[in-house]
């Protein structure tokens, strides 16, 4: 029995530091998000007043919040669809075709993923620069002499697409590598018999590749949702700060502005609680509607 006791002591000694750190820095702050969302808390004054769901009621009438909602949803939808198409197509090309320099392309495509969001944001600020940015100088080649550069980050109707472009640039390689892994596990004989039956490459792609990696695609849809919510915040924070005039504000950047800059913590955390629930609900819905009978090989 002594051995038993020793084993138990060993187990809990090993777990204790992890549980401690996890509880203090992840569980408590998460619970605090929900607790604080019910408070009216003006920041610097330590006055915390319980107001129930009042913060949420104000939130649904806050036009800036509604705009950040629209922006976030637009980003999630466009980034997910465009990245998904590019990543799947490029993954299929690199695994199915005998491409010269396959390794080279794989290495290059993954590079954006090892760069800091800050670095990518600065690179794209240079690309989008209205006076002597890379993109405008290319467009300028096809336009008249005295043509003025597009203010990609300074125009309220363009800025959100500029950020979406940056996010897609950053994401393609990552998802491509993931799809490549599951595509390369599809057995070769399926393609061989399909081509004997006269199926061309496009048909093979839709009848074999796509159904067989469907499970993987479904998993990544959840990633798209969660990472778009997070990354859009990081990019917006560095590239535009939510501007011009709130036009590129997203969920978490608005949260950060309310909580950290305005020090209205309760209100900010109400946004946090909503985003939390929103991302879970959206993931669950997407997961449900993409459910197909699993195909096995």
């Amino acid at each position, binding site marked *: 029995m002594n051995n038993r006791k020793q*084993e138990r002591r060993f187990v809990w000694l090993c777990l204790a530091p*992890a549980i401690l750190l996890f509880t203090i820095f992840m569980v408590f702050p998460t619970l605090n998000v929900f607790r604080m969302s019910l408070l009216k808390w003006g920041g610097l004054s330590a006055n915390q007043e319980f107001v129930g769901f009042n913060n949420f009621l104000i939130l649904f009438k806050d036009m800036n919040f509604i705009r950040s909602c629209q922006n976030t949803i637009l980003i999630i939808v466009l980034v997910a669809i465009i990245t998904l198409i590019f990543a799947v197509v490029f993954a299929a090309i690199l695994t199915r*075709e005998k491409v010269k320099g396959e390794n080279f392309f794989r290495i290059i495509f993954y590079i954006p993923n090892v760069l800091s969001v800050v670095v990518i944001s600065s690179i794209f600020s240079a690309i989008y620069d209205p006076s002597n940015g*890379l993109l405008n100088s290319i467009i300028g080649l096809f336009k008249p002499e005295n043509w003025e550069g597009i203010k990609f980050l300074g125009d309220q109707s363009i800025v959100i697409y500029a950020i979406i472009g940056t996010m897609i640039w950053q994401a393609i390689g990552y998802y491509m590598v993931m799809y490549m892994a599951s595509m390369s596990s599809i057995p070769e004989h399926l393609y061989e018999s399909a081509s004997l039956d006269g199926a061309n490459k496009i048909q093979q792609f839709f009848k074999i590749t796509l159904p067989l990696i469907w499970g993987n695609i479904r998993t990544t849809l959840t990633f798209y949702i969660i990472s778009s919510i997070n990354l859009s915040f990081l990019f917006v924070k560095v590239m535009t700060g939510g501007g011009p005039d709130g036009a590129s504000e997203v969920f978490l950047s608005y949260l950060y502005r309310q909580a950290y800059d305005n020090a209205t913590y309760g209100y900010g955390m109400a946004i946090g609680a909503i985003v939390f629930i929103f991302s879970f609900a959206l993931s669950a819905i997407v997961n449900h509607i993409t459910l197909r009978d699993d195909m096995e090989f």
Partner: protein
Amino acid sequence: MDKKTNRLYRIFIYVALLTLAISIIVPVVWVFLASIKQDSEFYGSPWTMPLGMHLQNFADAFEKANMGEYFLNSVIATGLGLIILLVVALPAAYVLARFKFKGKKIINLGFMSGLFINVNYIVVPIFLMLLSWDKGVSQIIGQRIFLNNIFVLAVIYAATALPFTIYLLTSYFRTLPKAYEEAAYMDGSGYFRTMVKIMIPMAKPSIITVILFNFLSFWNEYIIALTLMPGTSKTLPVGLINLMQSQKAAASYGSMYAGLVIVMLPTLILYIMVQKKLTQGMTLGGLKD
């Protein structure tokens, strides 16, 4: 397919691949070239080659913009964060994979749900928590120790990386054969000794994956660092944002791009060295912040 469409198809493939490759290579190389340009070279077309190696930009970034100090801070936060993470996560993952005990299910579930908690939501509550600890502590010892502390930052990096790391290590420990441990116990080796001397060395491949991924995420991280280190001491990415804002106003673009190179060069070097491992490891874990 007949020959002609086949050839068109091949051309299309290469055009597509090259377009994406160029769209990634050109901006990155452009930054490297811009980092050795003189400030006067930034007026006019952005496509001109640098006139010479203007390395003064780097000296400016290191000295005037404090990038040297920020670099050191980033090294400490990243290195220490990784050490704490491994010391804490390895035993926990090992125990979760190998032992049966009461409460195991709940603890597993807890860490798994931690995978869905993102630091971006909880950074403000963490900030407020440290702020209130500081208030308490400063009344006792007259000093604030939690905010603006690079070591606290490292601990928080480690803590927020725990769920993913434990998940990855646990699934690796499960694949190892039990025979090794049984042999060690037969030889009279205790639990702790068996874990440290036998099992952890066997988990080396997954440990390397953990180090790679977390090196990148700690080194590149900026929102926690920005919030929890509001003082003059910063990490590299936060320092870079400051540099961007101040240099744009002062139109000294050269040192701004030098700062960019300083931030991204370590990750690029590491990536080129271990790229195979990294893209393989990803399919094994398959998660991202």
